[in-house]
């Protein structure tokens, strides 16, 4: 063997090749959920509740059924009665009874926009017309939207009290999680400095640009096909089958390209309804949402009320932290409180902690995961309090964080020790970054914040097959939202030591590949990547074995080098066969070469990020402009550097939107006032600066290439980073989001 001449360890890892699905996407050829049409397809429409809370007394569908061209009408009564079953499809647990009742209301509507009935007709116009002809008699019930209002003794109950009774007083509390250790009160009373504050925000939406849509075709023999975009077509299969009480293998879900999800496409809203309409009509049925439907009826992230108390010694050592929060659960039980508890204060070493959160049912759409679900809200409170603590202590806020930062082996809030986390390295990189010491202009302020997200692993299946010409196809069960086909191809090409273009990656349907959890939890590059590497290693082994048998040498004499099987000893030493040569003769050496890896990936590690934000505040108008932003993140190891940076930049932009302008606005009648992109104000290009990213690489020792999930972390710190920057620019602490111009103006000029 020659002396190692290469400095870089990797052939492909960390490079930036063009994604395999790129040309389709820049030319408009790619088929998304909203683009698919089936021959003979009918168009569906959904009638939604105008009331935030009402009992359904009767539904008269006769006029709709009589309309020429209408082929099916469905209501909640068409869905089977189910027994409670909590299912986990990779993104928090949900009870299928709730999912069913959210698809079509059963006896009560629980939020404005709750689906009540659906129709299928030969044109979209007819379907809408027919839906409008359905007459629903409601008994309007008192509604409740606010967290404290929903917790009041006389609040309307969203969930009917359980039959038989549990002995507990019925309430709107859907989930209650507490973790911690030590003696919080004693430590706080002994602390040199204590800061406390209440932080609040209304729900925000994931804001994916593609509205939900699907086509379902359910035949009389029970077999069905669904074409849709989602964060997990296996999730669509299992939830749809469970809601309809049919076998999973009777449904084949074909994933279409997905136009953004951010956690919001990890459940089913339309698919079971489209299935019912298809079964009734005998034809494929398309259902889609309008943008208004998306805002009114799909999962926002919960709003929150968060109380924080932090105590520190005079030298800045944190001695106690107490975080108590309430999250909107919406109409059904949501999950964010659990992650909220574990994402609040675990990034600091604190001996005495108590973190406690509840989910509160109310007459809003059921909260759904949104990028690091439950974490940005508590982080906003804790990192704002840290800023205040630094001011009170007269300490540099970055030094305060460095002094208290958790290291590997320190305990998380759950009591488990942290593994190989790169939090300290992020803080050091930020301190060394020119942004940290750059001068500021007039009316400008700099804020910082750090945060983390636990990430996830879980089940993924990958099939790697070799074509007769020695090219490779990776088939995964993981929808590609942000370039994961490129990442899989990179990892497979790395293992196989072949050019990137020699490996192509596709997302296979539920009948063509094994179970894979949703693309969520920042798990795909980690878990599906692990399966890809395992499958590639097995294919490499098979190719070497075929070569060994061809050469009639022991298998251990053949190694894979530089994309070739090479005989390393014996008579045939130095013989080489390319992948094409082995694969070309594979039909005469035992058959096609292919390998499947199905695994439940373990050993995932959390990601940590640290952000620096400069704002400029117009003191007269209260407008906040983001003038510079730097995001530092431990990414484990970047597989496709561009898409890692892209994840960070996208998360930051969403966080900035959350911080500055995005918010749900309900009126007193419980109706959403801003169900569109005009008044639900997501950042536009002119609102944003370039976002500098610094990728810190502290590899995950468990992953073959060191991957840590990267997608969710970057939305965690921006809320506090912006608020802390506004504080620095104006002297005002903004504890209520969004920091819209009117609120900043009021803070500066003392109104309201």
């Amino acid at each position, binding site marked *: 063997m020659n002396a190692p001449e290469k400095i870089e360890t990797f052939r492909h890892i960390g490079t930036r090749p063009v994604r395999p699905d790129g040309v389709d996407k820049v030319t408009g050829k790619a088929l998304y959920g909203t683009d698919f049409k089936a021959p003979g397809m009918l168009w569906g429409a959904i009638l939604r509740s105008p009331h935030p809370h009402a009992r359904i007394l009767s539904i008269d569908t006769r006029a709709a059924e009589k309309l020429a061209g209408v082929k099916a009408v469905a209501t909640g009564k068409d869905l089977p009665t189910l027994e409670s079953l909590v299912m986990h499809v990779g993104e*928090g*647990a949900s009870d299928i009874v709730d999912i069913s009742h959210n698809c079509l209301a059963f006896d009560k509507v629980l939020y404005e926009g709750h689906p009540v009935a659906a129709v299928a007709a030969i044109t979209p116009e007819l379907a809408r017309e027919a839906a409008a002809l359905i007459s629903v008699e409601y008994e309007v019930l008192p509604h409740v939207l606010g967290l404290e209002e929903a917790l009041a003794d006389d609040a309307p109950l969203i969930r009917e009290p359980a039959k038989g009774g549990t002995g507990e007083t019925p309430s709107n509390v859907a989930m*209650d999680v507490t973790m911690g250790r030590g003696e919080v009160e004693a430590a706080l009373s002994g602390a040199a400095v204590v800061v406390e504050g209440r932080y609040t925000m209304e729900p925000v939406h994931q804001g994916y640009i593609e509205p939900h849509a699907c086509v379902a075709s359910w035949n009389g023999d029970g077999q069905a096909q669904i074409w849709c975009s989602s964060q997990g077509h296996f999730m669509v299969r299992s939830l749809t089958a469970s809601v309809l009480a049919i076998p999973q293998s009777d449904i084949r879900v074909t994933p279409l390209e997905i136009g953004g999800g951010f956690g919001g496409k990890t459940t089913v809203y339309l698919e079971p309804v489209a299935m019912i309409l298809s079964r009734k009509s005998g034809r494929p049925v398309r259902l889609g949402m309008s943008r208004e439907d998306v805002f009114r009826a799909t999962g926002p992230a919960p709003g929150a009320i968060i109380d924080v108390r932090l105590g520190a010694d005079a030298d800045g050592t944190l001695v106690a932290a107490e975080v108590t929060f309430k999250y909107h659960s919406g109409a059904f039980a949501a999950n964010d409180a*659990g992650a909220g508890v574990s994402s609040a204060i675990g990034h600091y070493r604190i001996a005495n902690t108590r973190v406690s959160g509840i989910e509160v049912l109310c007459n809003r759409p059921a909260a759904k995961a949104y990028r690091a679900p439950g974490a940005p809200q508590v982080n906003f409170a804790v990192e704002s309090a840290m800023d205040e603590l630094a001011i009170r202590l007269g300490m540099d806020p970055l030094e305060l964080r460095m002094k208290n930062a958790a290291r590997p082996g320190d305990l998380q809030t759950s009591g488990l020790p942290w593994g190989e986390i790169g939090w300290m390295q992020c803080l050091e990189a930020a301190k060394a970054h020119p942004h940290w010491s750059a001068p500021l202009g007039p009316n400008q302020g700099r804020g910082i914040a750090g945060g983390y997200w636990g990430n996830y692993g879980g089940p993924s299946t990958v099939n790697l097959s070799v074509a007769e010409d020695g090219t490779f196809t990776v088939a995964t069960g993981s929808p590609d939202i942000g370039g994961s086909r490129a990442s899989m191809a990179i990892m497979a090409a790395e293992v196989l030591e072949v050019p990137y273009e020699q490996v192509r990656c596709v997302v296979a349907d539920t009948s063509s590949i094994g179970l894979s959890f949703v693309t969520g*939890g920042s798990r795909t590059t980690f878990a599906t990547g692990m399966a890809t590497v395992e499958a590639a290693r097995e294919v490499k082994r098979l190719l070497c074995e075929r070569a060994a048998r061809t050469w009639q040498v022991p298998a251990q004499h053949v190694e894979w080098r530089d994309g070739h099987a090479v005989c390393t000893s014996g008579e045939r030493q130095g013989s080489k066969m390319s992948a094409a040569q082995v694969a070309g003769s594979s039909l005469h050496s035992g058959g096609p070469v292919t390998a499947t890896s199905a695994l439940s990936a373990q050993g995932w590690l959390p990601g940590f990020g640290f952000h620096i934000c400069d704002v400029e505040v117009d003191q007269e108008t209260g407008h906040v402009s983001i003038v510079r932003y730097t995001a530092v993140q431990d990414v484990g190891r970047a597989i496709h550097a561009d898409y890692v940076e892209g994840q960070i930049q996208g998360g930051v932009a969403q966080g900035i939107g959350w911080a500055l302008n995005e918010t749900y606005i309900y009126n007193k009648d419980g109706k959403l006032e801003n169900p569109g992109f005009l008044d639900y104000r997501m950042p536009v290009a002119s609102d944003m600066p370039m976002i500098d990213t610094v990728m810190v690489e502290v590899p995950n020792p468990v992953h073959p290439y060191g991957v840590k999930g990267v997608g*969710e972390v970057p939305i965690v710190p921006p809320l506090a980073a912006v608020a802390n920057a506004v504080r620095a620019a104006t002297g005002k602490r903004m504890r209520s989001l969004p920091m819209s111009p009117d609120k900043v103006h009021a803070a500066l000029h003392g109104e309201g």
Partner: protein
Amino acid sequence: MSASPLRIVIMPPFDKEFFGAERLSLDAGNLFELIEKLDAQGPGFAKIARARVHLAVDGVLETDWTRPLADVREVIVLPRVGGG
């Protein structure tokens, strides 16, 4: 089988919800068997375990419940939190 019984630490809400205790001592060959035994003490626990429970073996999350527990000292039962 481990030489001495396993220390089982039950985190909220499962302590109150099922067991009325924060610590238990049990013998189990693997995590499936452990859940069976926990179900005997807290009926209904097995049914919710897959959706709501994470198990940590000597401080590290373990999703493979066939993992043998010989030489293991402690299993923590903690709530499974959502991903994103």
